[in-house]
C-alpha cells in the first residue's frame, strides 16, 4: 500500500493507456479524469507523484490535475483498502434502511465511514443513489452491486472479498 514517492513511476501499460485516450478528445486536458482512473485502477489510489507524472504526459500543470483529482468523489488521494465498500445513503435507501447497514458495517469492521480496516482489506465510503432504488437498500463492493440488502447477509457477502 505504501508508495515511496521517489521511486514511483507509472508503468508502460499505464502510460500507453493514457496516450491511447488522447485520440478520443480534442485536447489532452480532457484525458485527465480518465488518466486518474487508469492509475487508480491497479493501485487503488492516486499518490502525489502520479499527479505529477500524469500532468507531464498531458502537458498540464500538476495543480490542474490535482484540482480535478480532489473534485471528483471516486478519485482517491489517500490509500484505500483492497476492497472498497460503497453504501448508498440516498433517500430511497434511507427509507428502506441503509442506516442499519451502515451501522452494521461499522461495527463489524471496527471502522467509521472513510476509514480502512487495519488489515487493509476494506474501506467504507458512502455513495449517491446507485440507480437501484427499486431494489433498495443497495451497496457496491468494488465493481459489484448488491440489492435488497439486510445486515444478516453482510458477513457471508464480505467473505467473497479477501
Amino acid at each position, binding site marked *: 500500500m505504501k508508495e515511496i514517492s521517489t521511486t514511483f513511476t507509472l508503468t508502460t501499460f499505464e502510460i500507453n493507456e493514457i496516450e491511447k485516450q488522447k485520440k478520443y478528445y480534442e*485536447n489532452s486536458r*480532457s484525458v485527465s479524469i480518465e488518466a486518474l482512473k487508469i492509475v487508480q485502477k491497479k493501485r487503488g489510489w492516486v499518490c502525489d507523484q502520479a499527479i505529477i507524472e500524469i500532468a507531464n504526459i498531458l502537458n498540464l500543470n500538476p495543480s490542474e490535475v490535482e484540482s480535478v483529482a480532489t473534485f*471528483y468523489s471516486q*478519485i482517491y488521494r489517500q490509500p484505500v483498502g483492497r476492497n472498497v465498500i460503497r453504501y448508498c445513503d440516498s*433517500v*430511497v435507501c434511507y427509507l428502506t434502511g441503509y442506516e442499519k447497514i451502515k451501522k452494521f458495517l461499522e461495527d463489524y469492521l471496527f471502522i467509521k465511514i472513510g476509514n480502512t480496516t487495519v488489515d487493509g482489506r476494506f474501506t467504507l465510503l458512502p455513495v449517491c*443513489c446507485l*440507480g437501484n432504488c*427499486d431494489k433498495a437498500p443497495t451497496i457496491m463492493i468494488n465493481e459489484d*452491486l448488491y440489492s435488497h440488502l439486510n445486515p444478516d447477509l453482510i458477513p457471508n457477502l464480505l467473505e467473497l472479498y479477501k
Partner: protein
Amino acid sequence: MNNIIPTEETHPLTWRLRNDRETVWIEEYCKKNGYFSLKKALKTMCPEDVVHLIKESGLKGRGGAGFSTGLKWSLMSKDNSSKIRYLLCNADEMEPGTYKDRFLMENIPHQLIEGMLLSAFALNVSRGYIFLRGEYIKAEYILKKSIQEAINFGFIGSNILNSGFNFELFLHTGAGRYICGEETALINSLEGRRANPRAKPPFPAVFGLWGKPTCVNNVETLSNVPSIVLHGVNWYKKLSKSTDTTGTKLMGFSGKVNNPGVWELPFGTTAREILEDYARGMKSGLFLKSWQPGGAGTDFLIEKHLDLPMDFTSIAKAGSRLGTAIAMAVDNKTNMISLVCNIEKFFSRESCGLCTPCREGLPWIVKILESLEKKEGHKNDVKNLERLCLDLSPGKTFCAHAPGAVEPLQSAIKYFRLEFEAGISIKKLKKCSNILGIQSNEFTSKV
C-alpha cells in the same frame, strides 16, 4: 391493469424488452425493427425534416426540466462554417430515487444509439459522447459492446448506409459528483475540468464543448427519437392521455411499496394508478404520508394529489415538478424532519461550492434540521428554514442545484409544519436571557 402486453404501437420505449430481462443485442434489435428509423431518415429525409418532426411531436426533455427537445435542437447554431459540433448524451443519472436511464441502457442500448444517430443526423453532428456515470459498471460494459456492434454493422462510422453521413460515438465515464448532470457542468467535466456549471449565455447550443455548438440530451429523450421518426407525429401525440405532454414516459414508484419498479406509461396516467395498480400499494400496515413525483429535488405532495395526471402542467399546478417521474412513496412511520435531513445532506455534500448561498446555506439547513430532529431546535428555526428556502430559490444561485435542494424542504414544511415545530426545544426558550448585552435570537424575536 398490469397484464397489458406491450406492443410497438403502445409501448415504443419498452416493447422490445425480453422477458428474461437480458440485454437486447444488435441482432435481436434489428429483428424487432431496430435501425429501421435510421434507414428511413437517411434515405427519405433531410436533417431539417427530422428537427421539424421532433418539434411537431411535442417531445419534451426527460432529464427533469421538460424543455421542448425540438426547440432545443433548433437553437443549435445554424452557422455551417463551424463544421464541428457535438451531441452529448447525459447518462449521468444520479438524482436520488431515479433508475430509468440505467434501465434503458442496460436493456435496450441500441435504441439509445439509434436515437443518437438520428439526432446527430438532424443536427449535422459527426461526433457524439455518452457521458455515463462511473458507478454504472454494467451499463458501461453493455454500451461499449453495443457501440462496437453498431460499428461492425455499419451504423456508426463514415458514409453510413451510403448516405454520406458520418458519425463517431464515444463512451466517457465519470468519476462521481452529482453536479456533473447539470449540462454545462457536464461539459466542463468532459473537458477535464472541475464540474462547476458555466454562466449562460452563451448557451451550449452556441458555445459548448471545446467552444463548439453542443446539444445535450438525456438518455430517455434520445431513446424516444427512433419511434417518432418511424411512426410519425400523430401516432406519438395520441399515445398520451394528457393534453399538455405527448408520448409515453418511464414512470415508477419506490419506497415501502409492495412492488417497486419502473413502467412505460402514457403521460396523464394518475399517480394513484401507478402506486396502486403497478407498485401494488403500500406495504401492509403502512399508509402513504407523502410522495415525491420525480426525484429528490421535487416538492413533496400528499395523498390528495395522487389523483393528478402525471404530466408537467398538472404536477406543476399542484406546486411540485414532474422531474424524472420516478416517484417515491413516504410511509406514515417516517419522520419528515429526518427524511428531509437525509435529502439536504445529499444536496449539501453534492454542492459544487461555486456560489455562497448554496455552499453555505445547505450545511446550515442540515444543521438546523439535525437540531430539530433531536428536539433541540431554537424558536426561530422553522422561520429560518423558510428564509433559507427563499435565499436559495431560483435566480439567487448560479445553477438549479440550490433551488432543487430546497423544494423538498419548503414543501415538507408546508404540509407537515407541526412536525417541524415539535422539534423546537421548550427548555431552550426558558433559558433565553441577556448575556453581557448580547441578545440571543429567541429573545429578539419575542420582542
